[in-house]
């Protein structure tokens, strides 16, 4: 079987394919390394840990990506049909053993190093003094509830849900604890831990704030707690990250991280509005 057929030895194809692979590698490496398209900066400690793990994974996968694609480009060019004899081999047990072990160790190490950030998000309980906020998601709005001056949440019931009467949580208005503050956006004091209790009225939603590096589905029938400590004053988007219907992409609200003093002022203001 020598190169007697037309499509053999097509150096042109080899060169084009190798070049395409090299351009792919160069462009990809540049766009990641120069951080042309970065994540927005994290505003929690956990967020920074997640970013560090992300960077580590980027390094590991980046090296593999470059080696594999450049290696492929090199082989495509080097072993194009020039009528040479093939280097006959059926494989190598040693190589199989080496790359199986190497990838296994590499991947599991990576996985083990990722545990820390996950544990901080999910295995560590919030401190006892953490600020409590209830979150009620519904097609296609967000509602937030603070316990009010008495520090207690009023009981709620689905039959009392009423968006038109400004009672999206279905607060039992006859209860003595019914001084809860209900807000369409989330106001939080900087540097203080907060625990959100996520609930949904209708379908699955998802609480997502990019700068918090947190995404959590909100499943109807479940109350799912999450906690974090915002460390940076600013305004951030709260997005719905789980398809919830036709208004999914318009279901957003705002997280406002403010100073402790501004937060107290805001609370007072809300309480005053409640009195009216």
């Amino acid at each position, binding site marked *: *079987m020598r190169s007697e057929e037309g499509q*053999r030895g097509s150096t042109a*194809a080899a060169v084009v394919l190798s070049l395409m*692979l090299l351009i792919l590698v160069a*462009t990809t490496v540049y*766009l990641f390394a120069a951080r042309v*398209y970065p*994540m*927005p900066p994290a505003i929690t400690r956990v967020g920074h*840990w997640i970013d560090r793990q992300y960077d580590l994974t980027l390094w590991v996968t980046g090296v593999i990506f470059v080696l594999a*694609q450049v*290696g*492929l480009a090199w082989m*495509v060019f080097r*072993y*194009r*049909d020039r009528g040479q*004899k*093939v*280097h006959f*081999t*059926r*494989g*190598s047990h040693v190589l199989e053993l080496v790359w*199986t072990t190497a*990838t296994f160790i590499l*991947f599991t190490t990576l*996985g083990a190093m*990722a*545990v820390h*950030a*996950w544990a901080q998000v*999910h295995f560590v309980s919030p401190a006892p003094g953490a600020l409590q906020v209830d979150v009620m998601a*519904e*097609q296609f709005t967000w509602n937030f509830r603070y316990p009010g001056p008495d520090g207690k949440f009023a009981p709620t019931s*689905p039959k009392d849900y*009423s*968006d038109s009467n400004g009672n999206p949580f279905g607060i039992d208005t006859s209860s003595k604890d019914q001084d809860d503050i209900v807000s369409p956006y989330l106001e939080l004091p900087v540097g203080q831990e907060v625990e959100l209790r996520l609930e949904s*009225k*209708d*379908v699955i939603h998802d609480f*997502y704030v*990019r700068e918090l*590096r*947190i*995404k959590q*589905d909100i*499943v*109807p*029938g*479940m109350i*799912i707690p999450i906690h974090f400590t915002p460390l940076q004053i600013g305004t951030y988007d709260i997005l719905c*990250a*789980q*398809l*919830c219907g*036709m208004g*999914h*992409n*318009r279901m957003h609200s705002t997280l406002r991280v403010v100073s402790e003093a501004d937060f107290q002022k805001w609370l007072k203001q809300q309480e005053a509005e409640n009195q009216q």
Partner: protein
Amino acid sequence: MSAEAHVVSHAPHAPRGFIRRYIFSTDHKVIGIQYWLLALAAVSVGMVLSWLFRAHLAWPNAAIPGFGGVMKPEQYLALVTMHGTIMIFFVLTVAPQSGFGNYFLPIQIGADDMAFPRLNMLSFWITFVAFLVLVSAFFTSAGAPINGWTSYPPLSAVGSIAGPGQGTGETLWVISIALFCLASLLTALNFISTTIEMRTQGMSLMRMPLTVWGWFVTAVLGLLAFGVLLAACILVLLDRLAATSFFIPAGLVFSDTQPPLTHAGGSPLLWEHLFWFFGHPEVYIAILPAMGITSHVLSSFSRKPVFGYKAMAYSLCAIGFLSFTVWGHHMFVSGMSPYSALAFSFLTLAIGVPSAIKTFNWLGTLWGGRIHFTAAMLFAIGFVSLFVTGGLSGLFLAQPSIDLPLHDTYFVIAHFHIVMGVAAIFGIFAGTYYWFPKMFGRKMNEKLGKAHFWITFAGAYLIFMPMHWMGIMGALRRYADPGGLPFLERMAPIDLFITIAAFITGAAQLLFYFNFFWSLRHGEKAGENPWHATTLEWTIPSPPPHGNFVEIPRVYRGPYEYGLPGYKEDFLPQHLTPEQVAKMAT
């Protein structure tokens, strides 16, 4: 070749009459082509749908032809849902497995047909009906469902109250998928029985082409996975139509003016578990046959044996086995136990090991070869490149902590489109260019094939690489438009870039359509073995006669005996006797 060692195929003559021969045929080759054409029809629909929603993403305020103005969010979501469902079920499951598997599995193991030809025909026609039922959802008054191809309840379970298309449209979706499951179970049963029982003499497991391994392991996955989705579909159908509460929790309220739903106590997470228990094996159902085809084609055109054949076969089995243990990585942010998330994370990273083994062995197959750049070979090499790229982004998503920011963003879209969407499509293209001469007796045009490859390969990366960065910046999937969010509006140029790349790449597929239909009549005559390949399909006429073999062949060696030193020819077909081979020695 001793005559008594052979069995003459008793397959009856091909039925006469158009309908029995081409429509309700029991011949595995006709059925394979039927599946392939069904997938071609489906992929055409799926691609047009993607063009429509890509157009909307690029020009959110422009009128889209056929939508009577600017596309509404529910129309966008219906397109996305149907695109995903059609592509995953009716293209990626149908073409590589049911299409090529039906055509070539029996031939490659030396059988005259599938074990159960009539069952085979039944499977195809159920699949066909399932496709019609799915597409008919577009023609209901409220349109197709909008809940995505994953159909999470309660959105998918409570009916039209949850949104347009969630009424009749979603019911049709569920029925279609249930039918598809049934057909796929029958197909899987057939494939497994055929592989176990119909192999010819000498075709031991370790002499099977890796394509057969791919189809076999895929069939096992299908057999164990589709029943679970079928059960889930039945339960969600009962929730929708018979007021049960398998997946619908208590006290759901969709509007102030209506009382809470009477359902109680159901669990949306239960659906997610059932769905992904099927759903993760499903992505391997799409990719394993393409892996087999890639190995097969790489070896054929490197003129070398597959590097580490046994490692390739075992890693297919390992991937198949592990694929049933990793479904939870789709649910890291679902509210599932965070402890089980860690277990799923490690199992997911572990499935990267056999995937890496395959990649190394593909590179090993190319290494030291004499590479012929046919269109089939280019697509197989393209598969390797895409599989590496898409596999590596999986390493991010396999870690639950990194999944927190990236889950449900375009990063995930980029990941699975590259690794199981485009890569599997590349496997299908490689298979089509490679086997077309066998199926139709003529070669496809190589020049057009290469042009098709260059544009498609570049296009695939141009479309999907930018989605990684969109995802990293926080762009969420299933958003019909930026929804007034400035950070999303700033990504408009990327969206436009992707859309243009998608249009060009999509248009380049016309080269493939033209090449395919033109070559049926005008392609260069292929003969029995145009690629000088070793496996049994190349020992019979092109196209093969009814019953495939005049004499059931006997197999004497492994499937990839290319480039052995000391022979006049650089390939030793599986069916040649040792005496015949001895004569070829130099």
